[in-house]
């Protein structure tokens, strides 16, 4: 009998305590961030869409090899001795034409493993997180700055060069003028460049 009434009492009491808690929370300011109107401030180490600064990329393929899901595809062509491919920002001379640098963001798991081994720190994570697409293949980003024709050109050039070398024809002709046309990569809003540079394990 005592248990019977204590049951009633504890039920009513605990329900009242619970109701007090929820009632108090009616007047606590909400934690909701009204996303499209208000944007959360992202920490500086945010890991979202990758960006590759092709001016600095030497085409060493280290990032592609570090990637656990193989979503970076890089193809390079050796530059001719006469080509001026340019220099990286830390002064290394580039020796390869990067004719293909695709990152498939549908596969990418944003693990950042590709960022650390890069010798020139040219691949990094940005804070762009809104890049949904209707088709999967539009998530394959092409970072190469050369136009498709130029890429073909470079490959042909190198093949020709090889062939010529193989035939051991000493006559060198037709110096190829490097193209100067700037082709913008697919990224519309160039992301902020200050990323987690200071945390790099080189």
């Amino acid at each position, binding site marked *: 009998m005592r248990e019977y009434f204590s049951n009633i009492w504890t039920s009513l009491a605990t329900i009242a305590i619970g109701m007090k808690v929820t009632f108090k929370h*009616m007047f606590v300011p*909400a934690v909701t961030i009204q996303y499209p109107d208000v944007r959360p401030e992202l920490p500086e180490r945010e890991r979202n869409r990758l960006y590759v600064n092709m001016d600095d990329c030497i085409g060493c393929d280290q990032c592609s090899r570090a990637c656990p899901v193989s979503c970076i595809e890089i193809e390079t062509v050796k530059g001719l001795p006469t080509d001026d491919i340019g220099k990286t920002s830390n002064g290394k001379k580039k020796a390869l034409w990067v004719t293909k640098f695709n990152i498939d963001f549908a596969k990418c798991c944003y693990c950042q493993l590709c960022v650390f081994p890069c010798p020139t720190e040219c691949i990094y994570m940005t804070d762009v997180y809104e890049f949904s697409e209707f088709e999967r293949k539009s998530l394959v980003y092409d970072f190469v700055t050369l136009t498709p024709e130029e890429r073909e050109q470079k490959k042909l050039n190198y093949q020709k060069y090889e062939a010529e070398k193989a035939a051991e024809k000493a006559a060198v002709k037709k110096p190829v003028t490097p193209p100067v046309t700037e082709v913008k990569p697919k990224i519309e809003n160039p992301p902020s460049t200050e990323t987690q540079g200071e945390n790099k394990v080189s």
Partner: protein
Amino acid sequence: MMYDFFLDLFGNEILAAIVTGVTPLLFILLFVLFAVWLERKVSAHMQDRLGPMRTGWHGWLQTIADLLKLIQKEDISASANDKPLFNLAPILVFAGSYAAFAAIPFSSYFIGSNLDLGIFFIIGISGLVVAGILMAGWASNNKYSLLGAMRAAAQIISYEIPTILVVLTVVMITRTLNLHTLSEMQTGYIWNWMIFGGPGTGLEKFLLIPLMFIGFLVIYTSTLAEVNRTPFDIPEAESELVSGYHTEYSGMKFAMFFLAEYANMYAVSAIVSALFLGGYQSPIGYLGNLIGVSWLVPIEQFFWFTAKGAFFVFVQMWLRWTLPRLRVDQLMALCWKYLIPIAFVNLIIVGLITVL
């Protein structure tokens, strides 16, 4: 009452009858629009969220948007359904709760039908809901729906008993089943309400107060169970039965269930307030009487009645967002071991007091 009023106004019996019938429906629709929004907001703020914010001011148009969505939705019915029953069930469920509104006195004029057996009629007609729910569960041809429907039927029928016992307690004191008369008896000020012992005087009233409080708690709990709200939302326990008897419904048929649920919430709140909290009576007297404008009084009464109903609906929501849910056997134990004995003892004591 309302029918006479409209008859005077239109001079046509059929038109008056139709308008009398449609007015509660209009009220239900408006109330549901408000209640669904309120439920969202209440739950959101209790959980430190904001709830709908993007449709109108603080999302007040959200329910309308939802309604539009539900109307547009395809009316899916699986091939193994029992089609006639499947289509009939939502209508029956809604009809049950709609019919209950016929006898609810919103104010001394706004009452669909001033039945002498008002409260009896309401309790009887809500039985239709059980039939509808069972139909829905059976016709869906889905094990979860069937389980949900069986639970709902068992639950609603069991919890009618404590409800009726408490209603009887009140009726014993007031000696009327007519909700209108019942409300009229509680006129005056707040201490004339049944929860404070009713219109009686002296020692009898004094003795009745704790008993009425107990009765009030019992009837509130059991009506909560009758409308399947947490902690008694076992028939549609989403974590167990997906969503119980209306799992298979979509579009407007689902909306009918939804409408019926919220209409029921208001109906039981209205009954509780009519029985215990003076119905449409104001706790502090009427402005209309004070300044001598007699047509203001029914409007004030309507306001008070709606406010009391809305308050209890709010408490229902509050409970829902606070409490976990009981298990089926515990639900039955609560009814048979706690509510019914308490209500019974209460009934007997009140009976003795009124006789002596």
